[in-house]
């Protein structure tokens, strides 16, 4: 019984394949368009998943609380006097002032992220030497020293030189000596970084001695991060308080379908399906209707005709799904999402070579499957059912 049922389905599958082969140009073109749409959706899903996962892993040790001062909706420097107010809050273990910002290099159009802090007072600060490909980390007492990311020496054209200068706001030069270069394995975080002492960063950006950019706050009990963040916000109402869970959550949502590019990918896919659905739902061609009529005259039942159309739709969509996902994986993992790079990095002059390897779950594939294969199966079977239920003689005529 089972064997005969299987044999029957195999025969129907053979017929469906022959039918697709008869219309091979049309079938192949539909499959290619379909695969291209799936490739687009799957590539976007894989890029965003791998970036979110990379952020989840890399930012697990982000500052527990970051306090920034807001003036007229913009982030401004924060007075060091706020340290006293913060230190008075019970549960705060340590407050570390930082000066950081961006430096535009007019000679090559690159933006560097300059960070000034005392590494000795930071968590794991004593281990920072382990993250360097060469050299060592400076101490807070050294002047004019910097540890830089992999991109900096090449971007500045330093070759073997280990000194460089950056312009202060008054266009005088601030010299630095490179004491270390971050390892390539940390590029996802350090590629454009220039890390220096608090005093040198203050000198470079001409920030007054009583001001810093923000405070990193560390608490005694990590379970109390939210409570202490609320207390800080109450005591310093002109500040914005960022917590580690908020930072981690940022990367779970910033690469979403609601971003402009994500919406374009989704809308492109929806438009392609709308055109495909319109073509299918507007009815079968006279040849296809005649074929169904002949099959019914030969004794095929409505269920058999529907099975043929179902197999045809399933074959086209499943093959397109397999090919589209395969190409998307190759595009993202082996070519670093090269088609998306112009949008991902924009006009950035320096950006790290992204090693994107998404850890995809079944849910990711089901999402793409639900967006693509399911609607196609629905729009294929419905017109076939309408044609298969009309009397065979009228279908042939």
């Amino acid at each position: 019984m089972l064997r005969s049922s299987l044999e029957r389905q195999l025969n129907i599958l053979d017929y469906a394949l022959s039918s697709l082969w008869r219309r091979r140009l049309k079938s192949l073109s539909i499959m290619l368009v379909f695969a291209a749409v799936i490739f687009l959706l799957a590539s976007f899903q894989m890029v965003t998943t791998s970036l979110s996962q990379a952020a989840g892993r890399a930012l697990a040790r982000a500052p527990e609380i970051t306090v920034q001062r807001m003036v007229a909706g913009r982030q401004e420097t924060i007075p060091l006097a706020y340290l006293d107010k913060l230190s008075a809050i019970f549960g705060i273990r340590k407050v570390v002032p930082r000066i950081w910002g961006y430096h535009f290099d007019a000679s090559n159009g690159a933006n560097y992220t300059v960070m000034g802090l005392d590494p000795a007072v930071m968590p794991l600060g004593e281990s920072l030497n382990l993250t360097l490909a060469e050299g060592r980390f400076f101490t807070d007492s050294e002047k004019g020293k910097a540890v830089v990311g992999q991109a900096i020496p090449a971007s500045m054209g330093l070759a073997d030189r280990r000194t460089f200068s950056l312009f202060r706001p008054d266009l005088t030069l601030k010299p630095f000596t490179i004491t270390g270069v971050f390892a390539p394995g940390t590029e996802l975080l350090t590629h454009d970084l220039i890390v220096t002492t608090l005093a040198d960063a203050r000198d470079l950006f001409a920030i007054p001695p009583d001001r810093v950019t923000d405070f990193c706050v560390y608490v005694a009990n990590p379970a109390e991060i939210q409570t202490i963040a609320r207390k800080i916000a109450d005591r310093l109402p002109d500040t914005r308080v960022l917590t580690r869970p908020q930072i981690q959550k940022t990367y779970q949502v910033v690469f979403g379908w609601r971003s402009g590019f994500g919406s374009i990918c989704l809308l492109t896919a929806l438009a392609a399906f709308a055109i495909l659905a319109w073509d299918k739902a507007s009815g079968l061609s006279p040849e296809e209707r005649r074929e169904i009529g002949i099959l019914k005259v030969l004794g095929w039942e409505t269920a058999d005709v529907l099975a043929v159309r179902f197999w045809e739709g399933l074959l086209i969509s499943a093959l397109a799904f397999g090919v589209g996902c395969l190409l998307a994986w190759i595009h993202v993992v082996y070519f670093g999402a090269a088609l998306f790079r112009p949008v991902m990095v924009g006009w950035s002059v320096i950006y790290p070579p992204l090693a994107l390897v998404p850890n995809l779950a079944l849910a990711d594939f089901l999402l793409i499957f639900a967006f693509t294969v399911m609607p196609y199966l629905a729009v294929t079977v419905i017109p076939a059912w309408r044609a298969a239920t009309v009397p065979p003689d009228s279908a042939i005529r």
Partner: protein
Amino acid sequence: MRPSTILFIVLLLLLGAESGLAFHGAYLRAEQRAQEPELDIVTAGLGLSDLCVATEARYTRNPAASDRVVPFMDHPGAVEHFPTGSFWAPPPYMRF
């Protein structure tokens, strides 16, 4: 040869290629996991809050620590013009 046999061969080839890529992906992920201790030290030691993916605008270089509506703040009536702005959605706590 039956058409369905050819189909099964094609499907097996596709499955084989995808399995091979999945295994290689697992190997690459294991390589990445080996670098996690380094990333932990850098993140904690420098208090970093963001990935360095794009460096053209401060709101895509540091989206977690950026201003609210910063893309439109440069002057009254300013429009967002950096290409990366279209790839990143604002974090929920910065949305109005």
